[in-house]
């Protein structure tokens, strides 16, 4: 068992490096005795150094090591780089990564996909790394902050001369007690002017400032832990919603997985005015997109009557989402869709147009014919919204009217037998159907704009951002201030001075030189043994 009782009579916990009371080094090899003291964590005992028996202690000790923390950070760094070599799956223009990667990037792509690097950041090994960093954050901070807090709270003014002379900045001068007290008075005044908090106790003095900056690292770690917990919350059902909905102009649609309905009153593209463009672009006459907009109304449904009641009205733009009661709608996509076809029926024999009708592509009439003047009837026999040929057979690729095609049946009093007639958007069918008496002419295409809206609900956001803000505040406290202390003690005909700062030694040195101006105190600033600590 180590002897933890100091010469001054104070009983220290096992693992203490510098006596909690007088600061005298407790355990040391003989050849170190001239060196500057290691002031990290005030030489206090930490849990990780004192216990190593049970499994929990072993785990604790593993995660309490800053070395382990740095290694975890560096591994995460290296792994993160791997994920940027090729685009991640969410950014590839294909829904089938297993085909896309080998096709686009060859063998490299295949290996990349098979190793799971194409979806790295949501893979479990990556999450495990982040989780381990989180655990390390908690353990490292707890292991250090408690002893440090105790040590800084119970600071004694009177320190052992050994503690003072082995500080990096120190001084030692023979003088009488009266001279010593007089010098201390002057230094106390000089240091007070530099906003030091001065405490005195008999023939000893402690001047201190910026102690709060020592808490900076722990505050920022707490912020990070809150942030990580907030991210974890996103996984809890009900805390995070990520949906997508297309809404056409004039249409009202339920907002997925929310009690709301959204109506798209108008969707438009705004172009830059020519005056807003630089001269060369304005001259070329090209139109440059300035903004995408959706005039949206949000409704709730009355549970009894089933009627929709408007609750919120807002124009959604890129960078300006609709926000209502935690639900957010973002402008994410904009498309102009085919809505209807205006068709004219022409009699090739007389050359006259005998009538026209409109087919609503979303809702084509199948059951009953389109009735035109003069007893003409046109019936849809077949409809292919997204027409294509496959093995010489007409098929539709999707239900979206991207390339609508129809087979119509035309019935007129002049015809004995009804005529079959093909209409394929963008294709001239005259040659194929030259035997037909009647011709279907596409006279106008009706379009409608539709907005793609991202629906988000992120209840963890306030937690994540408070975490981030606490983190930044902690960083500022820790890095923009420093903890500086000066100890002075007169003992048995000698005045001892020791001074320590946790960082920025050159500023400290200047400050001390100014405070000691006019005295004959010779401060020693050795050129080695300096170190910062958080």
């Amino acid at each position, binding site marked *: 068992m180590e002897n933890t009782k100091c010469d001054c009579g104070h009983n220290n916990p096992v693992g203490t490096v510098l006596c909690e009371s007088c600061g005298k080094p407790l355990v040391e090899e003989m050849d170190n005795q001239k060196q500057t003291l290691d002031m990290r964590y005030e030489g206090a005992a930490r849990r990780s150094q004192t216990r190593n028996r049970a499994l929990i202690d072993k785990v604790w000790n593993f995660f309490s090591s800053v070395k382990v923390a740095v290694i975890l950070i560096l591994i995460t760094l290296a792994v993160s780089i791997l994920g940027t070599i090729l685009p991640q799956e969410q950014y590839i223009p294909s829904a089938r990564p297993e085909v896309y990667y080998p096709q686009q990037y060859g063998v490299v792509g295949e290996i990349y996909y098979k190793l799971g690097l194409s979806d790295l*950041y949501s893979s479990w090994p990556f999450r495990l790394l982040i989780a381990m960093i989180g655990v390390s954050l908690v353990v490292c901070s707890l292991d250090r902050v408690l002893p440090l807090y105790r040590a800084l709270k119970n600071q004694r003014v009177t320190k052992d001369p050994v503690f003072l002379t082995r500080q990096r900045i120190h001084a030692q001068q023979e003088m009488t007690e009266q001279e010593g007290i007089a010098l201390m008075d002057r230094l106390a005044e000089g240091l007070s002017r530099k906003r030091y908090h001065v405490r005195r106790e008999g023939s000893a003095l402690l001047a201190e400032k910026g102690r709060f900056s020592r808490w900076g690292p722990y505050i920022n770690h707490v912020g990070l832990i809150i942030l990580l917990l907030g991210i974890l919350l996103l996984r809890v059902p009900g805390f995070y919603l990520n949906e997508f909905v297309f809404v056409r102009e004039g249409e009202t649609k339920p907002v997925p997985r929310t009690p709301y309905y959204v109506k798209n009153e108008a969707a438009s593209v705004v172009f830059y005015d020519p005056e807003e463009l630089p001269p060369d672009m304005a001259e070329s006459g090209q139109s440059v997109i300035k903004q995408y907009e959706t005039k949206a109304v949000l409704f709730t449904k009355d549970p009894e009557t089933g009627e929709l009641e408007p609750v919120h009205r807002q124009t959604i733009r890129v960078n300006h989402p609709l926000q209502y009661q935690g639900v957010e709608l973002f402008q994410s996509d904009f498309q102009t869709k085919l809505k209807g076809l205006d068709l004219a029926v022409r009699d090739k024999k007389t050359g006259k147009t005998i009538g026209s009708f409109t087919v609503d592509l979303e809702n084509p009439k199948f059951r009953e014919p389109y009735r035109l003047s003069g007893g003409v009837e046109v019936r849809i026999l077949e409809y292919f919204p997204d027409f294509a040929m496959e093995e010489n057979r007409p098929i539709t690729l999707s239900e979206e009217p991207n390339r609508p095609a129809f087979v119509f049946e035309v019935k007129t009093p002049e015809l004995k037998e009804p005529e079959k007639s093909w209409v394929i958007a963008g294709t001239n069918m005259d040659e194929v159907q030259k035997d037909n008496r009647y011709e279907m002419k596409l006279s106008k295409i009706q379009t409608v704009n539709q907005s793609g809206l991202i629906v988000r609900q992120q209840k963890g956001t306030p937690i994540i951002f408070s975490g981030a803000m606490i983190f930044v505040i902690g960083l500022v406290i820790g890095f923009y201030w420093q903890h500086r202390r000066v100890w002075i003690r007169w003992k048995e005909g000698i005045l001892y001075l020791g001074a320590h700062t946790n960082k*920025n030694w050159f*500023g400290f040195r200047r400050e001390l030189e100014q405070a000691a101006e006019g005295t004959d105190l010779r401060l020693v600033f050795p050129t080695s043994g300096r170190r910062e600590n958080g």
Partner: protein
Amino acid sequence: MNTWMENLLLLTFVAYGLASVAFAVAVIGRKRKSGEDNHVRRWGRAGIVLSIIGAAIQVMFIISRFFIGGRSIASSMFEFTAFLAFAIVLAFILIYYLYRTPTLGAFVLPLAVILLAYASVFPKEVRPLIPALQSHWLHIHVTLAALGEGAFAVAFIAGLIYLIRVVGNQRNSTHARYLELTLVLVVMFVGYILVSFLFAGLGYEAAIQHPLNGETIQQEYSLPPLIGPAGGEVVKMDPFLGLERPLFEAPSWMKGEKAASKTNTVFWSIIAGLILYGLFRALARKRICECLHPMVKNLDPEMVDEIAYRAIAIGFPIFTLGGLVFASIWAHYAWGRFWGWDPKEVWALITWFFYTAYLHLRLNRGWLGLKSSWLAVGGFVILMFNLIAINLVFAGLHSYA
């Protein structure tokens, strides 16, 4: 860009250039009759005053561009790189008043000059912003991130000075060799800028057609194509030393849209850098770090080491706030998600991880001096990679140049 703005930019460039000269004179021309201290103080003051004037002019430039132009501060490569130069000078001015070292200025200001020149390689016109870039959060995010990076750049210079001071005059040390290699990289960067200006001044143009993913596309070259795309066909090529077609073809696995012309640019930079370096070696008959060593040999290495740490300590909270926190707020408004693992986002995080590791190694593991200086240099290499390679190589949300 109108002439008024053009002149402000030129004045900034001149002020930073003169500040570099003043600081260099303060450091090199020490042995004068007027007394060493006096000389250093006078020229050092001239240097810092010129730096402040330059920064003030650049503020005017940025403001006038913001209001006259497209209401953006740093949303094109030109704007961002120029702003980074400004951030570096700003961080330097702050550090100068903390440590009063003209030597630092003699190295930092030339870096600002180089970056400003690099910025001018990119198109300077104000371009209308696409919808996603029209956000106040964007400006806050980019400017703060750049201010943090400016401080990191000062740390890089301090790290470099420390290395030159401590190992610069060693003949056969690994450290000295790597230090020289780092300096050669800087020279290549300068070479790239010189070559770009040279051929832009000559109005050089070339275009090569080549197949890519079943389509024929055309790559424009502003430097003579020494490396062409695989299976390329010359559409147009201004004469250059009798060259009629590219000397080499880029390997076929380079699939990027502009892979070949980018590789060509890199190749040119290496050649120009090596020529510059060769000329230097032929004239000076010494390595660069040996030549620079006398400039810094009187510095206290501990102070330089502390400056590097201090600059990173100042930059880290700003970079975190600008590069990660505000960045994710902007990302949220623009795309509806705070974080999307876009390459540039990941690289910002990597940069952050790197400096986090630096701080822990220094504060907790006692990595001072050489190790710490190398890390400060490495961090800046990552930053430059992020600035140059990501924007030019990866197609992501941030590749606006």
